[in-house]
């Protein structure tokens, strides 16, 4: 599907990845890569290195013993997770801006981190074994399209809320489609392709609200992203006017076995882990 001209232009006007992030994506995409390649690229950027080490030593990631080298951080966190973290911390254009068009109360980073934690949690209870670290990365990236289309929604929030409240639209995606001719997952997919992200992640971004449309081999990953996103909203970390305006795809039961007690336990784990990481990544407790 092609994007409306204005939005396609916006995707192309967004900064490409920093050279470090770009090289890292290329390295991780290459099946024959090794840890030393990643370490060399990350170490060339002092600020990135210090942020990565701070994160690796946070209560959420730390697994005993202080992490003082990039080498140790990469070995401990894994390639995909390091790539996700680097994409997050080197992309302030996408993650640090407030999503004004969504009337969001905080930057995309906050919802993305909670979704990442939630998706990772869901990966651990999936019927098919998938990498929890890849689920984390998919969660971190799932909403990048919102950073692109947010400005095109400005001035239309009343109209959108009217449509949602009066059930003219069932989900928020219908309102995006009606107003812009596209949706945040589609735009996120275009941005993912521009960044050269691996197919598993671009599929997770594109289909996180329509998981059954993803290729079968990525379905579990896409469902962890789908539910991770919704669990993040349920926990109160949303991106503004689209909060709760989405539908759970009931076919999740093919990919997870969940009781009500499991859901409670998972929500509690997400909250505990989010509390452990948010101070480190500069998410203070909601002061105005």
């Amino acid at each position: 599907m092609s994007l409306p001209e204005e939005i396609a232009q916006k995707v192309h006007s967004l900064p490409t990845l920093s050279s470090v992030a770009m090289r890292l994506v290329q390295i991780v995409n290459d099946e024959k890569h090794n840890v030393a390649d990643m370490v060399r690229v990350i170490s060339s950027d002092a600020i990135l290195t210090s942020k990565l080490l701070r994160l690796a030593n946070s209560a959420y990631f730390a697994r005993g013993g202080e992490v003082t080298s990039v080498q140790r951080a990469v070995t401990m966190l894994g390639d995909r997770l390091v790539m996700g973290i680097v994409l997050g911390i080197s992309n302030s254009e996408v993650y640090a801006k407030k999503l004004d068009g969504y009337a969001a109360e905080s930057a995309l980073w906050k919802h993305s981190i909670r979704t990442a934690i939630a998706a990772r949690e869901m990966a651990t209870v999936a019927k098919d074994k998938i990498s929890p670290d890849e689920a984390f990365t998919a969660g971190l990236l799932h909403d990048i399209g919102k950073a692109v289309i947010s400005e095109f929604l400005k001035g239309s929030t009343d109209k959108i809320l009217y449509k949602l409240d009066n059930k003219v639209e069932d989900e928020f995606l219908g309102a995006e489609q009606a107003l812009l001719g596209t949706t945040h997952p589609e735009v996120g997919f275009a941005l993912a392709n521009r960044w050269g992200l691996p197919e598993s992640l671009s599929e997770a971004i594109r289909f996180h609200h329509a998981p059954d449309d993803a290729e079968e081999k990525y379905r579990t990953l896409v469902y962890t992203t789908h539910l991770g996103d919704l669990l993040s909203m349920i926990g109160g970390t949303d991106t503004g006017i689209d909060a709760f305006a989405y539908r759970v795809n009931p076919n999740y039961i093919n990919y997870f076995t969940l009781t009500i007690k499991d859901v409670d336990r998972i929500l509690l784990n997400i909250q505990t882990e989010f509390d452990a990481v948010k101070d480190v990544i500069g998410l203070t407790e909601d002061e105005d």
Partner: protein
Amino acid sequence: MGTIYVGVGDFAASNNPGDIIRTIGLGSCVGVILLAPRQRAVGLLHIALPDSSINLKRAQDKPGTFADTGIPAILKEMKKLGVTSSRDLAVKLAGGAAIMDSNNIFNIGKRNILAARKILWKYRLGALNEEVGGNISRTVTVDVDTGRVLLSSPARGEWEL
């Protein structure tokens, strides 16, 4: 005098003139608001889950997380401010939003509301006023001086509960 922020699973009570107690973005969580006009005291609790049996350690460390441990905890705080009888208390409830889910397994908001009502009832307390459920995330602000409770949500402005 200032604004006291109540995080997830936290609670606060105050009788300091000029104080405001606020909790942001309840989502499926439930805010329990306690008003004691006679003592000029208010309390706010931010419940995330209905039942502490899933994690007793968490219930000990952060009793406000669960309805069954959070409500006794906030009542104890109110007692410290001289509110000893449930007759002195007016209760309001807010939050408990839901994602659209045909199986209802993710409708944690509804279960939080039911649990909060049930536990309150044990203390002979019922909500005087509530705005719960639906598809919006609410922020709650309680003013110690006036006992006014304000709700707000992104792009929807502010209104009184």
